């Protein structure tokens, strides 16, 4: 859209060719809008029809999509979801970012003094990325209390959180490190040239650029973490998944699982849109020619 020009000195009126061209552009836009609309509607109607007309649909509907059971199971699932899953994931995300950043920076460092820490960081990422998260949850949630150590909590929530942080910290550290390494060496050179210390160069120049590049995979890991909070339910924490299983086992209806799925999706989508928006804004601000 071109705003009307109003300055007196340069009273520009679009030429007839330009007006004609705008009409063409408008009709091209209308055409692509129409194509998009028709394609979308046809696609989703087709998916719907195929699903609903399948022979087993009535059974599936009654077992997974029963309105009555959804309403009945919702309050306890909702409560457990907020009380445990959301809290686990919010706390976990903050702790993971801190841990992962430290590990990534330590692995990047070339200071001789930090060599022992580098070894620890490498062993940590290698080890904890390799262990299935659910095993880690079991080992910590059951193993730590079994040690009978004084002053150590037996809280399932606590050990579940620690397991998730350790497991995801290793993944996220590698993601952040790949971002840091993707920043061109000339950036470090120009930070050096300005007299910044290595740490300052990392803190103000390299990390901000590197992290921005890996935001999509980071988001991926966090969405994955949100879902994996349900693993703590497997160790016995009464989270949303446990609440759903409770209901499903009692009433022989799987609808509560659908409800849980719905909650997880609702939690994820706003986060995805927010990061998309932030990325797009940064792109427009910093890059010429970005649209």
């Amino acid at each position, binding site marked *: 859209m*071109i705003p009307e*020009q109003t300055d007196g000195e340069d009273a*520009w009126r*679009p030429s007839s*060719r*330009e007006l004609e061209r705008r009409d063409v*552009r408008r009709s*091209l836009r209308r055409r692509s809008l129409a194509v998009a609309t028709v394609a979308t509607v046809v696609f989703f109607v087709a998916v719907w029809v195929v699903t609903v007309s399948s022979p087993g649909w009535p059974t599936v509907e009654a077992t997974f999509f029963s309105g009555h059971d959804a309403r009945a199971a919702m309050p306890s699932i909702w409560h457990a979801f907020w009380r445990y899953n959301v809290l686990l994931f919010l706390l976990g995300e903050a702790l993971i970012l801190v841990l992962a950043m430290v590990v990534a920076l330590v692995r990047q460092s070339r200071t001789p003094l930090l060599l022992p820490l580098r070894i620890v960081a490498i062993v940590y990422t290698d080890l904890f990325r390799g262990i299935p998260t659910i095993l880690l949850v079991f080992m910590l949630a059951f193993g730590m209390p079994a040690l009978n150590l004084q002053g150590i909590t037996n809280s399932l929530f606590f050990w579940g959180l620690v397991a998730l942080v350790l497991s995801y910290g290793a993944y996220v550290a590698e993601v952040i490190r790949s971002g840091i390494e993707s920043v061109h060496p000339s950036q470090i050179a120009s930070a050096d040239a300005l007299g910044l210390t290595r740490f300052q160069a990392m803190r103000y120049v390299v990390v901000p650029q590197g992290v921005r590049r890996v935001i999509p995979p980071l988001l991926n890991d966090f969405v994955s973490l949100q879902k994996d909070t349900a693993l703590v339910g497997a160790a016995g924490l009464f989270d949303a998944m446990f609440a759903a299983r409770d209901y499903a086992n009692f009433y022989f209806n799987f609808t509560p699982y659908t409800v849980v799925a719905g909650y997880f999706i609702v939690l994820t989508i706003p986060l995805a849109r927010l990061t998309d928006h932030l990325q797009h804004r940064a792109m427009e601000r910093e890059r010429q020619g970005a649209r």
Partner: protein
Amino acid sequence: MSRDAALPDASALLEVRDLRKSYGDNVVLRDIDLTVQPHDVICLIGSSGSGKSTLLRCLNLLEEIDDGVISFAGREISDPRIDRREVRRHIGMVFQSYNLFPHLTVLDNCTLAPRRVHGVPKAEAEERARDLLARFGLADQAEKHPDRMSGGQQQRAALVRALCTRPTLLLLDEITAALDPELVGEVLTIVRELAEQGTTMILATHEMAFARDIATTVCFLDEGRILEHGPPAEILSSPREERTRRFLARVLPQT
């Protein structure tokens, strides 16, 4: 260059009439008229922000224009229905900051478009690229990645990349602006060679001496207008406009 020509010039390779380009309220180009005959070398001069780069970007349809008509080889290319890729097959462009693909070797940079866009077989595309690289003194650089080379080498490689598709028109956007004087000479020698071979070019440049040497026409841009244009001897030695005189006084070496 014939601003008052009522009829479109049939022999012209590129013809621009009343071109206007704005970003929101900011009008960056207005009333631009430009005719480029085959074998012309048009130099766009003017201070930074006068619209030289934007004009070049408009010409190969990287920017959507707000008014006016651009014709290339007798066809209006400012029509929204035109296939931009088809137009760009015939126009080469070199950017101020090289814009080579850092993940490809020089040779791969130079053969990408010929092979993927123009359908030239690999062996032929590579032969063509190696020939040009050798001509421009880059024979031993073909397997290197761009980041490993000096600025002058990179810019020459970028020129080779543009030439490998055998464009009918070459757009050069201040290609020496990021180079030191010695490297400037290196790149300009090549551009001069191209001009002597009859390559049709439009180039934005700050090298006045160079413009005087090779241009068939010099256009002085100021605040988005072509304030005056003509043979280099005329524009650079006895400009009509006061604004042009002031600009030249600042950029021409004092004698």
